[in-house]
């Protein structure tokens, strides 16, 4: 929640998450370099460290890319999503260390600027076995740097969530560049088919999980609600909405979360103001809808964050008729109070004309 920025909003869960990252990375590097020393006595420690950092970053990137679709397919993966930014920054730092050590090892010993050397020392663009794969890694690193540099909430707010999201979607370009970087680099010198199979399996896992998650989303967006009276749409039986939880419906491609709580139903935009998180996949905690991604909270009746916070989302008028939830598709201005529909009661919210543009 945002009133004043903090460098990092530490919590016990975040500390545990970060500790697991640090320990995991350290153990991996020790095993990689230690095991490499035993298996490849001729390999230098510098080379093993460069490869350990590179493979560690690449593995972390796979984990990062899989967390999103996994969380959409199964809510049990949501805790991994909460602090994914820290995982992303850790992955960038590993990739940066891999790049700096590689630059020093392979490009800093001549009289040409190492960065210039990276681009001009090999121009065999037509060769597969000798392709200048380092450039691909460089471009991927630039993308990962921009992502890591803009990972703070300050950037989310100042670039706006939409631009920020688009910027961070560049991770898929970075991933493609890195797959090519590995295929045209390490796999050309290490001809072990197991390594090629691992690379293919990793890419197949990432692609398959994204397709499964997209398929689930498409099914939701493809559902059309039946029209009811006075412009309301039939959003289904109220009994199907779990207490303190929501069911998400799609209206013209935009999603609405119908929350059931304390014998009432309220509808809000499914899009969290913070990072466009799926509010409908969250729960009502302490009387507030709580975004499953980063815990931003909104009161269900007016879509406003409790003071002193000031985030707001759009609300929608609801009715309950014959045990079915009816929702009006026109959003009310963010933060507008809307009488919740009462389950089993005679209360029906006053139907007012849709608001026009203007201040609250």
């Amino acid at each position, binding site marked *: 929640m945002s009133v004043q920025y*903090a460098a990092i909003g530490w919590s016990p869960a975040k500390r545990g998450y970060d500790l697991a990252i640090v320990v995991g990375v350290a153990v991996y590097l020790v095993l990689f370099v230690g095991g490499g020393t035993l298996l490849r006595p001729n390999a230098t420690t510098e080379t093993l460290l460069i490869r350990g950092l590179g493979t560690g970053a690449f593995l972390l990137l796979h984990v990062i890319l899989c967390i999103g679709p996994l969380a959409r397919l199964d809510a049990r993966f949501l805790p991994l999503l909460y602090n994914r930014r820290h995982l992303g920054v850790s992955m960038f730092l590993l990739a940066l260390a891999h790049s700096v050590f590689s630059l020093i090892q392979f490009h800093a010993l001549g009289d040409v600027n190492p960065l210039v050397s990276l681009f001009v020392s090999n121009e065999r663009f037509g060769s597969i076995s000798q392709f200048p794969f380092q450039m691909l890694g460089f471009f991927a690193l630039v993308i990962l740097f921009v992502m890591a540099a*803009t990972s703070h909430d300050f950037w989310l707010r*100042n670039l*706006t969530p*939409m631009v920020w999201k688009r910027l961070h979607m560049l991770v898929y370009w970075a991933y493609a560049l890195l797959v090519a970087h590995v295929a045209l680099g390490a796999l050309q010198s290490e001809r072990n088919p197991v390594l090629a199979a691992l690379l293919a399996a990793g890419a197949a896992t990432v692609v398959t999980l994204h397709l499964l998650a997209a398929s689930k989303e498409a099914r939701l967006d493809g559902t059309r609600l039946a029209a009811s009276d006075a412009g309301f749409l039939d959003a289904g039986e109220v009994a199907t909405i779990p207490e303190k939880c929501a069911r998400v419906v799609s209206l013209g491609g935009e999603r609405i979360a119908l929350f059931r709580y304390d014998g009432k139903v309220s509808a809000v*935009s499914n899009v969290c103001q913070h990072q466009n998180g799926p509010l409908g996949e969250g729960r009502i905690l302490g009387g507030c809808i709580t975004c499953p991604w980063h815990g931003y909270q909104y009161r269900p009746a007016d879509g406003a964050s409790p003071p002193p916070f000031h985030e707001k989302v759009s609300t929608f008028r609801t009715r309950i008729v014959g045990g079915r939830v009816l929702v009006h598709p026109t959003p009310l201005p963010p933060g507008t109070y809307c009488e919740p529909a009462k389950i089993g009661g005679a209360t029906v919210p006053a139907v007012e004309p849709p608001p026009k*543009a203007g201040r609250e």
Partner: protein
Amino acid sequence: MTWYEEGIRVVLGSLGLYAAVGAVFAIAFCLQGVQRVDSQAVGTGWGFPLLIAPGVVVFWPLLLRRWMGGASDPPLAANPHRGVSGIQDREMQR
């Protein structure tokens, strides 16, 4: 020197210059400007400016324009629901 190598030197040199200007700007922005363009940055500790500084080096033209323009808060993101309900700017959110 080939045209390719010369081109690489020009591009990398230009990027270096852009980053150098950005680094100088980042010092001023993190010390003063950030509090002018974003009310949530007022009264933060030293860790916050350090964390945003690398991004300032990248996006300094955007932040310079906002600082010079006297904006006190970032624009509110477009959102289909907000668009339909007529809410377009952050002032309406307050």
